[in-house]
């Protein structure tokens, strides 16, 4: 398993995909924070929403990590490297489990860096607007920790979806359409059902309320419940992916 973890880490370091995704995540973190600090009224910046403003880009980082996870697995099929991967490790379940672990860790690390970057923008940018940067309190740190965990979960979910579906373009497009269009519509019209859908479950690990079409929030899952259901989603898709991949021909 250690050898596989090292090999997976080398795969990440030896192409530009991870670097490109990192740059994209950095840009979507930095740009909204800079623009909001530059153009929002001073009163808004010094209010309770300061931290939300600074981390405005973090939801986009989450989607970048989701795509990163999908590419990590579907890329093996797209470039044909899956042949060498399975020749070196014929136990296909191990390959998928190791990828899930590595990508989950990378997702956590990427979100940690994104949050640190956002706070750095606050430390530098807020005083320029004459606003004092307040160090994050316990609640803010707990929020950040949940964001970091969720990023890891979503990246791993991307890997699991990629292992299940294989086709890169279809998986990326289908997942983003589901996450950004289908689920929000279901949440709007059937919030009690929407609360249990995967990307809403992931988001409930961070924030609790689920908004309905009438503007009211419905009671969703608690953070621990959302975390456990998230793990359940990843486990279910992964087990299915392993089951199917063991029966699939690599031609």
């Amino acid at each position, binding site marked *: 398993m250690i*050898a*596989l973890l*090292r*090999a997976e880490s*080398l*795969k990440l370091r*030896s*192409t*530009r*995909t991870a670097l490109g995704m990192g740059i994209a995540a950095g840009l979507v973190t930095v740009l909204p924070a800079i623009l909001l600090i530059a153009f929002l009224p001073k009163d808004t910046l010094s209010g309770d929403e300061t931290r939300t403003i600074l981390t405005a880009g973090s939801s986009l980082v989450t989607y970048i990590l989701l795509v990163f996870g999908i590419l990590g697995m579907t*890329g093996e099929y797209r*470039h*044909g*490297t*899956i*042949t*060498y*991967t*399975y*020749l*070196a*490790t*014929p*136990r296909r379940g191990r390959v998928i489990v190791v990828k899930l672990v590595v990508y989950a860790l990378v997702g956590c690390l990427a979100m940690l860096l994104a949050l640190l970057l956002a706070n750095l923008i606050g430390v530098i940018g807020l005083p320029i607007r004459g606003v004092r940067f307040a160090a994050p309190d316990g609640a803010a740190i707990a929020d950040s920790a949940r964001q970091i965990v969720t990023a890891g979960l979503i990246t791993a979910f991307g890997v699991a979806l990629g292992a299940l579906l294989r086709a890169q373009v279809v998986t990326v497009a289908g997942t983003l359409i589901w996450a950004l269009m289908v689920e929000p519509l279901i949440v709007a019209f059937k919030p009690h059902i929407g609360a249990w859908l995967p990307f809403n479950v992931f988001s409930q690990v961070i924030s609790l309320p689920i908004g309905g079409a009438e503007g009211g929030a419905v009671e969703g899952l608690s953070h621990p419940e959302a975390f456990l259901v998230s793990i359940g989603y990843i486990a279910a898709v992964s087990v299915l992916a392993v089951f199917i991949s063991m*029966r699939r*021909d*690599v*031609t």
Partner: protein
Amino acid sequence: MAVIEAAHLSKRFGKKVLAVDDVSFTIQPGTITGFLGPNGAGKTTTLRMLVDLVRPSGGTVRILGSRYSDLARPPTRVGALLDASGFHPGRSGVNALRVVATSAGIPYDRVDAALEMVELEGAARRAVKGYSTGMKQRLALAAALLGDPEVLLLDEPANGLDPEGVRWLRTFLRARAAEGRTVLVSSHVLAEVEQTVDDILIISRGKLLAHGPISELTRTAQPVVRVRSPQAKTLEGLLVARGAAVNRLGDALAIRGPSSAAVGEIAHTGGVVLHELLTEQPSLEDLFMQIAGTRKEA
């Protein structure tokens, strides 16, 4: 003990395509076996079944006494070249091999040794997308050699190689066999492997047509009589009328059936002038055409 044993191996894709149909063979240690057949004959599918990349629809396969996936650190026992394009285009050659080596617990000095063996050290740090087809083929061969395996499975290894590369490959395979390793090499270009292999497996449309030492199979095959004549068309008519199989190209005829003496007599009787008359032992290609032709007629 046989190194590779396939028994009643078959593979069906969907309901209509029977890619491999009840194929059985054994490969002995220290031999180079040519796995021959036209494109689409079932060679690649069979090779992939040997290393558990494709699940057989029926039959069994054992390599070094067990299933490939049951071998401990399989790339150190069996090296496979199955897909020369199976490298990430943005990854360097050396890193592509290091990924495989790391997964299989093979030390990095073997990466350098394999690159040296295929004479690719100079391009090792370049991204694979900048490689020619021949260079990718050499990289794939290096990947197969990484674990210093005792068995090599090579699917069309000469694809994309220039004539110099093909000659290099031939020498390379001979050297591996001289070390006592077993090589199973597939090809659809029969002349390419003729000078290299000890045994051959001939497959066509998923069925195994022949299996045995190349010398034995070519000895039992009918010789070919080659004739050059300014009246080649007339002679062709005379020979066909006597039941010979004739291929004519300009003034040259390749004749199967009658001996050279009989051909000479037929020409003399018919008043046909001959410029050349000789008997040739059949090439691998002739042998393949004979075997495939016989089965088709059957």
